[in-house]
């Protein structure tokens, strides 16, 4: 404007645009009125006249013009006012209608809240997060919680109503479960804390005292089985209640209350209840009650161990009685059968009632192990039991039945500590069965051997298997012998030889007796044949183990076939040439060992109905001055007469001692071998460790006695396998 001319008035002037920011001061107030009206209409179920778009836009504009805070605060006030009105109407509801009214208002509030949130959505998205306010929906729930649920007039009434209804249902009344469901769901919607503090906690407390009283009543008037039935029913009822109208999270809590009040608090009393407790259930095989007890007790701490302890002590007690009862010792087969029955009984209880619980099975096993080994004749008896089953031909029993029995026996076998003793006896019994041809099924025998083998390993059964091989080769050899030499033998007596490998069989060395000449010739022919086919072998006749079938003609001409032992045959053959012989004569002619001879003569002369010899003087026992005559007057209905040897099936006391001693002898080298094996790998070891290791290595076969181990160590030191450490005397060193 440096140029001339007056300044012109009509110059452009940019005015400040004052009105733009100065919004109508009443604007916010007016807009809020519209929204407030809408909120009331929504609560009054009169929303159909409202335009959503208009309301949304109004709320949007308020937020846009920085009236967010006002909008939020006004909303809060209006909603609070509405809820106070609602709380009055709920408080006014009478009796049973109270819950209905509460639920109806809650539904209304939820619907209204949803619509209010729709209107204020923009505020929820923008104003609420930046100013850290509570979102509208949550605000609505919080206000409901504070002004309805926590209102002093409603809170206790609500809780009491709910608890009364539940109590009524427990007493058998029918209640409106749908309503209950809605109310508890409302409490959950208000937040887990509301549900837990305002309902769940009092519910659990009331339940605890309810069940405490009820369980006391039950236990006074019910027996154990009935009590458990009631407890189970209550437990199921509570679980059902949770599934119908409580939050799923309550299930664990309420069941634990019932468990504690009904079971844990009365556990010991229940178990030991007179006439109906656990002991009686076990005795009477009450599977259903036992199963119930198991499933209930497993829910509480120490529940199962309580059952287990009672069962174990019961088992040990009965088992101990069983194995130490002098009556049962008389019949080994019955003895083992009773053990098996006991085992079956408890196996069934565990599988039917205790869900095959491993810990119970272990308790059962350890109990059996405990009492079976209390009686040191158990190995013998078990072997005898097997002998009985395999010998008598288990009349009518099928292969499978035998298999089952053998499997059960193997269970008992597993409990044995002295497996080597069992082996000894089993070998004897097996030998008898094989040699007397009394094994009924070769398959059953072999299956038993396989079982032992899988249980104890190859070593344990190698000799038993050797016995079977011997039997087979003997058969082949005899066939071959007769096929090649039949014309040579002519009409002489038929010979059946079992060739037994030395060491495989439990034979006692006994000097052979003098065989009758007829037999001797055949024997010599066989010997010649056998040694001719097998070089470098030695044959020894075990005359104490054989049997013979001989034909005899008696006074009135009647013929009998006598089935006798080899010794008896030798004695009888003497009477072909003489009518009467003194004991001394017989002893001289046969050279049978005195004890065997006595037994053999006793069975020939003193057994009624089988007395083919006559003794003078008549008496029960054989003395060296007796004279024997051929009994012409012998009669029998049977053509075949079996003359047994008087021999105890069960071992007599001295025999038992002898077997025991033999077992002890056999153990010595095994213990020594174990010690040497251990020391060879460890080189230096102290005494206790050796004992522990040896015990560990050998326990599959037997339980070595520490004193014996010590003796073996000393013996090994003497023989310079080991030496004591020069510095530390507790240590042993291996000498290579």
């Amino acid at each position: 404007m440096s140029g001339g001319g007056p300044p012109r008035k009509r110059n452009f002037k940019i005015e400040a645009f004052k009105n733009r920011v100065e919004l109508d001061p009443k604007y916010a107030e007016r807009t809020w009125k519209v929204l407030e009206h809408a909120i009331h209409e929504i609560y009054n179920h009169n929303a159909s006249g409202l335009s959503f778009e208009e309301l949304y836009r109004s709320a949007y504009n308020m937020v846009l013009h920085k009236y967010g805070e006002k909008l939020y605060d006004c909303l809060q006030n209006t909603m609070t006012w509405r809820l106070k009105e609602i709380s009055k109407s709920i408080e006014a509801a009478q009796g049973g209608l109270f819950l209905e009214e509460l639920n109806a208002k809650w539904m209304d509030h939820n619907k209204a809240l949803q619509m209010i949130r729709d209107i204020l959505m923009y505020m929820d998205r923008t104003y609420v997060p930046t100013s850290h306010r509570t979102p509208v929906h949550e605000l609505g729930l919080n206000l409901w919680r504070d002004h309805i649920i926590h209102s002093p007039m409603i809170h206790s009434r609500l809780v009491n109503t709910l608890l009364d209804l539940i109590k009524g249902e427990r007493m058998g009344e029918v209640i409106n479960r749908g309503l209950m469901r809605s109310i508890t769901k409302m409490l959950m919607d208000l937040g887990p804390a509301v549900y837990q503090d305002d309902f769940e906690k009092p519910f659990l407390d009331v339940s605890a005292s309810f069940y405490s009283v009820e369980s006391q009543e039950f236990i006074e008037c019910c027996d154990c089985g009935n009590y458990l039935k009631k407890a189970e029913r209550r437990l199921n009822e509570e679980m059902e209640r949770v599934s119908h109208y409580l939050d799923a999270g309550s299930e664990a809590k309420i069941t634990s209350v019932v468990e504690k009040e009904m079971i844990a608090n009365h556990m010991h009393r229940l178990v030991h209840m007179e006439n109906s407790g656990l002991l009686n259930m076990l005795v009477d095989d009450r599977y259903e009650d036992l199963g119930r007890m198991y499933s209930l007790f497993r829910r509480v701490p120490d529940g199962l161990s309580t059952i287990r302890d009672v069962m174990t002590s019961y088992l040990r007690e009965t088992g101990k009685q069983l194995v130490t009862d002098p009556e049962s010792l008389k019949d080994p087969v019955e003895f083992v059968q009773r053990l098996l029955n006991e085992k079956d009984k408890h196996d069934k209880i565990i599988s039917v009632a205790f869900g095959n619980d491993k810990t119970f099975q272990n308790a059962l096993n350890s109990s059996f192990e405990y009492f079976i080994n209390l009686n040191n004749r158990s190995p013998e008896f078990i072997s005898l039991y097997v002998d009985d089953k395999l010998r008598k031909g288990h009349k009518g029993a099928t292969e499978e039945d035998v298999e089952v029995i053998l499997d059960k026996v193997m269970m008992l076998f597993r409990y044995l500590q002295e497996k080597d003793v069992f082996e000894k006896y089993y070998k004897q019994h097996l030998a008898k069965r094989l040699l007397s041809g009394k094994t009924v099924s070769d398959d059953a025998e072999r299956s038993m051997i396989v079982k032992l083998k899988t249980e104890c390993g190859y070593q344990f059964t190698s000799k038993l298997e050797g016995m079977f091989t011997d039997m087979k080769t003997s058969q082949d050899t005899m066939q071959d012998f007769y096929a090649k030499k039949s014309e040579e033998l002519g009409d002489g007596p038929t010979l059946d030889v079992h060739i037994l490998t030395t060491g495989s069989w439990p034979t006692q060395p006994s000097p052979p007796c003098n065989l009758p000449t007829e037999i001797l010739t055949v024997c010599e022919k066989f010997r010649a044949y056998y040694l001719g086919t097998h070089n470098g072998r030695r044959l020894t006749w075990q005359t104490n183990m054989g049997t013979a079938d001989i034909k005899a003609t008696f006074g009135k001409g009647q013929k009998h076939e006598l089935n006798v032992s080899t010794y008896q045959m030798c004695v009888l053959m003497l009477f072909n040439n003489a009518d009467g012989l003194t004991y001394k004569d017989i002893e001289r002619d046969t050279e049978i060992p005195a004890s065997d001879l006595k037994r053999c003569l006793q069975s020939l002369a003193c057994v009624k109905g089988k007395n083919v010899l006559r003794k003078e003087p008549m008496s029960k026992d054989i003395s060296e001055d007796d004279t024997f005559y051929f009994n012409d007057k012998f009669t029998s209905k049977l053509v075949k007469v079996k003359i047994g040897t008087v021999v105890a099936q069960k071992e007599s006391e001295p025999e038992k001692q002898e077997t025991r001693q033999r077992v002890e002898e056999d153990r010595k080298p095994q213990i020594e071998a174990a010690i040497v094996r251990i020391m060879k790998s460890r080189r230096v070891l102290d005494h206790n460790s050796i004992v522990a290791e040896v015990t560990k290595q050998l326990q599959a076969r037997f339980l070595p006695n520490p004193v014996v181990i010590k003796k073996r160590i000393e013996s090994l030191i003497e023989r310079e396998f080991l030496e004591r450490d020069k510095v530390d005397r507790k240590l042993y060193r291996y000498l290579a």
Partner: protein
Amino acid sequence: MCTPAAGRGRVRLNVGGRVFETTTATLASAGRDTMLGAMLDASWNASHDDAACGGGGSAAAEYFIDRDPACFAVLLDLLRTGGLHVPRGVPEATLYREALYYGLLDRVRAARLGDFDGDRLRLAASVPGCAPGDGTAVRAAPDGGCCVAHGGAVRVYNWMLEERRPVYYPGHAPVNDAAYLDAATLLVAARERPGRLGDDGGVAAFSALTGGLRHRFRVAHDRQPRSFTAGALTFDDGGCSFFASCKGRFNEYGIGVWDANTGEQADFFYEPPGCALGDADRLQWLDGTGTLMVATMFPRTDSSFISLLDFRDKSVVWSWSDVGTPASLEDKHAVHAVVMEDGRSVCVINQYDDLGFLDLRSSAGGVRWRSRSKLATSGKTKALVSEEVCYPKLATYGGQLFASTGDTVSVFSGPDHVLTSTLRGGQGGAICDFSIGGDRLFALHSEENVFDVWETPPPAII
């Protein structure tokens, strides 16, 4: 409306005078928690339903919306097709505003940003800064926004690249590092200045929306709260706790650990002799092994030092340093490090843009430098801006390795790290920092405080 069946489900909308006709299904696809979803909900249409039932005519179902029709057309198109096509005449800011009105902003964002792919990046924007001095760091937010730390302030941008209120550390302490705890919460590490009394520096959480201070994280030594300087920040894989390199005034050097939920100090790993932890300029959590990589690099210290810490038994499980490197190689310093995504090796880069690798499975090995990954162009660029030295930075994402060299970001792919893309953007000079997150790559230039935003466009349909 040829038949009643065709008429059912049809909606007529009058938006700002322009009539749109669409189906309720299209509008309902927006979701119940949007303005359109709510408007069509039964609770707001009780009377309409009555009328519809009675008369059978759906002519009554016309809604009026007092908004801009052009933007609505774009958003309706988005609801119909799932794709976002913005015509020339519609400014993005307006579109975003309208989307926010309808409650569709999240859908716009999802349609706007494709899944991140380092080889298909497109420069979406160059945002000029107005802060004085150099930017220290740029950090990507999980939702596509970012923040730029410089001096005493952190400037925060939402995913629409609108600037929010900046974050100031109390006392305007200089900011060393920033990290997003979530899209709404920003952690800031600041330097303690000498001469100040007590309460200065440290780590604090801020609202990324409003810039307000939420929480200050404290460090206590022997139960005595102490002030400290916080260097680098990082999170563990669950985002439950975070780590910061800390320097206390009384030689209390080490790595602090805080619980991100409670805000309480959870642990402190004191610097053992021969380790540099308190000065670390890079921390990285290894998901697989549960260890923390701590790298203290040249030129902050004379030599570079990298170690892996196991907080469970407070041990250094692996470490490497170039202290003993022969003199001829001495001028080659590792200036940045990143643990590869397989967790087996650490990639380092020196000031001449050579990439090198350290094997984490053996402690003895040195750096295997790879000369062929060096870029021919970067040397030239560097010469141009040599007065402004920006050391290269590294990052990994989605199986790719990213390195900023000069004014470009190079993308290496595959097990042999072959160079597959180079990103060169705005005129801001050398890149001093970059960050990947929320499907975007942000590159901060040293001059002018400009930062570039790289996005992956939606893939071609055919």
